[in-house]
Every structure is written in C-alpha cells, then in structure tokens.
C-alpha cells in the first residue's frame, strides 16, 4: 500500500533522503573528508616519498639508507638507548606506583601529582634540567666538585626516562589500583611471606600493565627528538637523523625512509599493547573485594624513602629550570632577576602567545572533530563506520615526528590544492588535532558508552530527529568529558615539539620550539624562562578547568592523561 491511497496522510520519509539518513551521511562526510586529507594523505606521502628517489619509484632510498654503516649505528644507538631508558622508567615507575598503592606513604595525593609533573612541560625540559644539574656548568660539577660528563648516551637515557615516567606511572598505578583482596588474604592464610606473595599474586596480576607500560615508554623514547638534540652531544639517534636529513640537507626521501623505519616499532608496539589491554579487564570480578592496606612500619618507611627519592629527582630537575629562569647568568652570576621574562630575544613573547593560541584552537578543533568522530562512529550506522573507527585510532601508532614530516611532504607540494595552508597556524592546529586524535576519540567513545544508547532510543521514539537528539540530549550529557578532552588537547599542544618542528617558520614560532632553539644557542636562562611559562600556562589551565568542574558538580573527570 502506498501513501497515495491515503491522501490525508503525508508519506513517511524513507530511503536515502529521509532527513536522519541524510544528516548521518553529512556528519560522516564531515568527519571522514578531513581525516582523509590530514591523516591518510600525509601518511601516504611518507610512504610515497620513501619510495621515490632520483631514479624514479623503487627501493633505491631504502637500499641507499640500509647500505650506509652510519644508519646501522643510529639504529643500534636508538634501540639500546630506548631499551635502557624503558627498563629504567618502568622499574622506577612500578616501584613508585607500588609504594603509593600498596604501602602507607604519607601525602599520597601530592606524590601522585609529582609523578605527573613532567607532562606539564615539553619533554626536552628534562634534558634542560639535567644539564643545569650535572652538565658542564651544572650544580654538581661547578659547585660540588664532581666531574660528571652527562652529554651523550647516559644524558639521553636519563632525560627520556624522566620524560616517559608519568606515562608508565599512569598505566602501572591503574594496574596496581585494582587488586582482589581475597587472593592476598588466602595467600597470607597459607603462610606465604611478602616476597612470595609479590611474586605469585601481585606480579602476575600486573604483568599486562608492565608490558603495556614497556611498549608505551619504548615508543615514546625511540621517537623523542628534543632530548637527544639538547643533551645528546655526539650521540645521534634515528629521530635526530630525520631532522638533520630533512631540515639540514633537504633529503626528503631519506628522511621519509627513516620515518617509515620509526613507524614500524611504534605501530607494532601499539598493536601488542592493544591486545594486552583487552586481557587486563577479566582479572577483577563482581565478587572481588578491595585490598585493604594495613600499616607496617618497616615496609612503609622503606617505600616512603623510595617514593621521596624518585619524587625529589623529578622535582629537582624541573625546579632547577625554574631557578635558572630567575638568575642573571647561570652559573656565573646567580643574582636573582626577572630580566629573562622580558623575552628580549627574537620574536619576544610572540612564541608563548602563539602557543596559547594554537593550543586553544587545537582544543576547540580537536573536541569538535574527534568528539564528532566518536559520535558518528557510535550513533550513525553507515558502511563507513568500521573504516572510520580504525582510522580514528590510527594516529596512536604514528610518532609525532613522522606525522609532522608527512605534513611537510603532503602540503609543501605544489600539486596539492591544500598547500595554501603550508606555513600557516591552521596547519599546525590541524596537525595537533590529528596527532592526538586517537586518545580524544577513545575518551569520548568511553563516555558515550557509559551513557548507553537508551537515551537516544527514547528520544527517537518521541519523534526527535538525530540532530535534535545530539543537541538536546547527547551533548548536554557529555560536555564535562568534552571539556576534559579539550584540556588534554591544550596540554599536549602546549608541550609538543617533535610533531610541529617541521612546520614552524619564524612567523609561526611556538614556545616549545623556542626552548629548543635557545638551548641550542646556549641561551640557557631564556630557554628556562620559556619552559617555565609553558608549565605555568598548563598548570593554570588545569586549575581553571578543575575549578569549573568542581563548581558544576563534576568531580570524577580525569584531566591529566
């Protein structure tokens, strides 16, 4: 029976042109098209350039690169440095998280924040602080009579270790936070000593967390670029080599080859980590009861000492940078001054304002695009939903430097109509959006899952269109999460260096790059002042948003990730 038989009734909209399906395809396109242009295209460009040599398409760049002994030195340097740094950071972070979760350490909340401090600054601040502590003109060598040579392998290892520490800590403290108290009680009742309980209960329950922390740290360290630049001296790694090839020698093809090489461990690590994360959940059942920590003097004192030692190390590396920013000329003239905050360097305070502007814009664009992507994947069922969700989490396997290089290769090309964006803030903002896309997407998806689909269905059955449901129901329910995503974007964009380094020109200078350039030039105090400004802006933003959330009654939103 068709509607024509009932002149009194309007025909119900069906097929493609029903408004909901139309809106669905429109939203899908709004998410998919920029993703193709700004994620898939740059990554394809890397692969393409790595295959394009002077003699046409082929493996020439690869054979050229792999044939050079220098390349294999860099590979060995990168891998050994990353392994040592990863082992160190995971061991320290495990002990730190274990002490906080399983012993009675005073001021637990404070020490948790201390563990996360390195996230508030560009990673190369670690190298900066380390040089001020134990460098040629550092506190130890200069004033305490030591003779330490920190430049090179160990400097890079330690600064990367500190930079990766909060990431490992977040994973491990989550793994240690959940524990089935019954297991510990039965182990104790069976007469197991603490060491045996640790070996047979704690370690097996957290081994997935350990593995995940290892992969995340390794990926971060092997692709980090700022620390080896600042403290590496003659010690070169793959990440710095990409920079040298591309910026120093304009060898895009060779840079792209190393980019592909760096993509491999990152992507592999991501896949393994995802597999592992899936298994972690089944450990706790509804019948589990939480583990209660009873005071034990000896154990508590020992763990407190360990936590304080690591915490003080983290603080002192950052604190020395703050101190250096306030003295006239480290280490020769230690009188206090504010002159480095006058920023009478090239560009003045512009890089800081640029950073704030770029980060703010990235936060807004990121919330819109990644949030919309999560909504489209969950709420709009089209044949494209599957590929879309895969693409949405793709960036988590792409090192920032590789993506940044992809942007240069894709948007510096005259054939690309989008090349008008090259050299503008817009492209830097877009890069930030897609570099951090997967985490923002996953945070929003989780929040949408927690709300569930029943409100949508209720709204639909009451006659609401998809866009009305989105505006009246979904968005009002998830805004605190979206605010959290915005903060995440803001923080990451303020501190990220390796992703944007290729896209910077003098008129689009951001603060993290200023730190690198000033350190490179030996302007230690000014570099420190820039770092302090970045940290102050990040902390200020966190405090402000936390205040808004508390004032509106949303206490359980995680801001630091």
């Amino acid at each position, binding site marked *: 029976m068709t509607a024509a038989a009932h002149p009194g*009734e309007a025909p*119900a909209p069906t097929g493609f042109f029903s408004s909901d399906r139309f809106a669905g395809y429109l939203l899908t396109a709004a998410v998919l098209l920029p993703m193709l242009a700004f994620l898939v295209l740059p990554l394809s460009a890397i692969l393409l350039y790595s295959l394009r040599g002077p003699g046409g398409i082929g493996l020439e760049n690869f054979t050229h690169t792999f044939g050079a002994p220098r390349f294999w030195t860099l590979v060995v340097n990168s891998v050994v440095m990353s392994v040592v740094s990863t082992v160190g950071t995971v061991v320290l972070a495990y002990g730190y998280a274990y002490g906080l979760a399983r012993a009675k350490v005073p001021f637990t909340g404070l020490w948790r924040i201390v563990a996360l401090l390195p996230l508030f600054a560009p990673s190369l601040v670690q190298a900066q602080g380390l040089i001020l502590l134990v460098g040629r003109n550092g506190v130890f060598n200069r004033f305490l009579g030591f003779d330490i040579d920190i430049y090179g392998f160990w400097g890079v290892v330690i600064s990367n270790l500190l930079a990766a520490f909060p990431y490992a800590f977040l994973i491990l403290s989550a793994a240690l936070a959940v524990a089935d108290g019954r297991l510990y009680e039965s182990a104790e009742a069976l007469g197991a000593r603490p060491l045996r309980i640790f070996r047979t209960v704690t370690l097996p329950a957290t081994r997935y967390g350990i593995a995940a922390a290892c992969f995340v740290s390794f990926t971060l360290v092997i692709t980090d670029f700022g620390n080896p630049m600042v403290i590496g001296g003659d010690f070169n790694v793959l990440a710095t080599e990409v920079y040298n090839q591309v910026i120093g020698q304009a060898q895009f093809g060779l840079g792209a080859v190393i980019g592909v090489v760096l993509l491999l461990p990152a992507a592999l690590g991501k896949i393994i980590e995802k597999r592992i994360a899936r298994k972690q959940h089944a450990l706790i059942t509804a019948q589990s009861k939480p583990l209660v920590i009873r005071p034990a003097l000896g154990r508590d004192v020992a763990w407190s000492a360990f936590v304080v030692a690591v915490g003080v190390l983290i603080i002192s590396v950052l604190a020395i940078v703050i101190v250096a920013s306030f003295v006239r000329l480290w280490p020769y003239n230690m009188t206090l001054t504010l002159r480095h905050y006058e920023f009478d360097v090239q560009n003045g305070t512009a890089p800081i304002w640029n950073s704030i502007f770029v980060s703010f814009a990235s936060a807004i664009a990121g919330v819109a695009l990644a949030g919309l992507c999560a909504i489209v994947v969950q709420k709009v069922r089209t044949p494209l939903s599957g590929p879309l969700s895969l693409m949405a989490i793709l960036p988590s396997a792409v090192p920032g430097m590789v993506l940044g290089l992809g942007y240069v290769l894709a948007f510096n090309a005259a054939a690309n109509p989008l090349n008008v964006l090259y050299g503008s803030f817009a492209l830097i903002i877009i890069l930030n959006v897609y570099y951090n896309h997967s985490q923002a997407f996953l945070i929003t998806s989780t929040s949408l899952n927690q709300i569930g689909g029943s409100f949508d269905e*209720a709204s639909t059955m009451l006659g609401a269109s998809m866009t009305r449901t989105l505006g009246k129901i979904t968005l009002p329910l998830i805004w605190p999460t979206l605010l959290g995503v915005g903060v995440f974007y803001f923080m990451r964009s303020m501190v990220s260096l390796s992703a944007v380094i290729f896209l910077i020109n003098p008129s689009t200078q951001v603060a993290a790059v200023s730190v690198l350039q000033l350190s490179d030039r030996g302007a230690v105090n000014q570099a420190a002042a820039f770092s302090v400004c970045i940290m102050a802006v990040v902390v200020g933003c966190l405090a402000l948003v936390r205040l808004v959330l508390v004032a509106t009654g949303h206490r359980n939103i995680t801001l630091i990730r």
Partner: protein
Amino acid sequence: MDLSIRGIVKRFGPLTALDSVSLDVPHGTFVCFLGPSGCGKTTLLRVIAGLELADAGEIRLGERDLSRTPARDRNFGVVFQSYSLFPNMSAAKNIAYGLECRGWSKPAIAERVEAMLKLIQLADHAHKLPAQLSGGQQQRVALARAIAPDPSLLLLDEPLSALDAKVREELRTEIRALQRRLGITTIMVTHDQEEAMSMADLVIVMNGGRIEQAGRPVDLYAAPQTTFVANFMGRMNLISVNIAADGRPVFAGMPLTLAGTAQATTRTLGIRPEAVWLLPAGAEGDNIFPATVREVVFLGNITRVAASPDAAPDTRLAIELHGAATAPAIGDAVAVALPAAALRVLT
C-alpha cells in the same frame, strides 16, 4: 486501528532472533509478549518500534504499511526498562520533549504537560530532576512522557522489572487502568507470567524466536498446547503415555479417558496439580490409579502432596490440596484420579 504483523524475520549474524512471526493486535487491546530471556520478545517489540529493521516481513497499522518508516515517524510511545528519562531535564521537560519534537505551541505544551502530571499524580514534582524521583515515580513520568503526544501504539519493554515488589503491584493496576481509560493499543514485554496474566487481554507466549501459543490468559492456563507453555504458565504434571492400537493413550498399564482426542504421535499429557484428585485407597473408576504418598509439604492455605502411581513408581504427580484439608502422611496408600476434563494433550 488494528496492528497486523506478518512473517517478521530478524537475524543477528548466525542467530535467528525472530523466525517468521505473525500476529494481530485488535485496536484498544493490551497484549503481553511473554517468554524467557532470549526468546525474541524484546526483539519483536524493537522491530515494531522501528528500533531494529526486520530482515523480512511486514508491519501494518490499519491500512498503513510501517515496515520502512523510520522509528521517529511512527508515532509510537515507548517505556523502557531503565526508564531512560533524560537526566538533564526535569519531569515536566521530559514530558514536554515529544510535544516539542512535534512542534506544538508553547501554551498547548504547558497545558498537556500539566494534564499528564495530574494524570500520574505527580503535579508537585514537575520541576524535579529524574535523580530526585523514586523508581516508581520515574517510571510514571516515563509513562506520561510516552503517552503525552497521543501515540497510536504504546510499547512497554519490561517496564516494571526494575522496581521492588510493592511498587510493581501498584503500577500494574495503574498502568492497566490508564490503558483502559485512554483506550490505547498497548504491547508489553515481560518474563513474569503473573504480570502477563494479571494485566493482558491477550498473551503471546514466545520461545526460540517463534510464537508458541497466543490467547487469553485463562485459555493459556487452562488449555496449554505445548509442554513449554504448560510449564511457563504455572506448574503442570507431565505424564508420558503410549498410544494403544485403539488410539487411546495408556499410562501405568491402564488406558486413559480423554475429553479431547490424542494423536498417534502424542507422547505427553498434562494436568494441573490442583486438578488432580486425591482419593482413599481402593477407589476405582476411569483414570484412577492406586498410588503411594511420597512427600507432603504444608504451606498454609495449600498443601502440596507428591504421589507415585504403584504401576509407574518413577512418575511423581504433584497434587495441591486447598484449605484445611486433612493431608495424608508419607507412605500412605491412596488413589489418584486424573479427571478426563482436566487432561491436556501436549506437543
């Protein structure tokens, strides 16, 4: 307008959730889909609502084919198990939502919302958020929200299962009274046979994606056609029989007299515990067997007795004695009668 459903098929991957389901719901009736979890009752409700798209089949309301109509254009009201009241809106705002979607004028909405709140006796709670209301109040608001836009069909998806027993009973009566008053065709999904029997004009018993039996509650109870329905709607004794050459079923070595007729393929007869008679030992007649008492459980208003026919000691017949009957003791020799009128042929 009558609702007519023809040959609905719904598959989820390899699983067939609905296997060619057809049924008719006359205008103004209250229908219950009853069955265990996974029987397809909720899927059928969701297909009718338009929240799931059927792989095959047709849904008609009156003369209108709704099979391809998007859910939001069907003008059906739904109440979900989890209430699904919008947590960011007050009770009044929740009720107004469907009216806003239909573009009602502000004064008309205000008037309708007020009438609805009065109808569910929550006029004082108009501006409370869902979190400030009790479970029963939330479900009443959900009901008001569903019927406010005057839907042509009301769908209730286990609306009472999240509530505690006392509130559930109150709401049962309230929903039924409201449905009668508004004369709105209503379909409710439930797994609670008592709920279905006490509320519905028509009960559809579902199992494994098919309709097992449909009928008035009293017919389903008195005359179940399958062992599944017999067991799902209360308790029933199942008696294994063989069919003799003359076509009569034989139990414990004795041919049984039936009110109906057995088929050559009949293997099981059913009889309700309260329909079995307990007689003194030595009683004789059609369908009467000498038996031994195995178990006696006193429950106040009724006494449950289990007895086994002496010729079929593996069969235990459950018998319910009402009032202050003088119950036998375990081991007593008795006789049990299976009245022909109460014996049902089951498939």
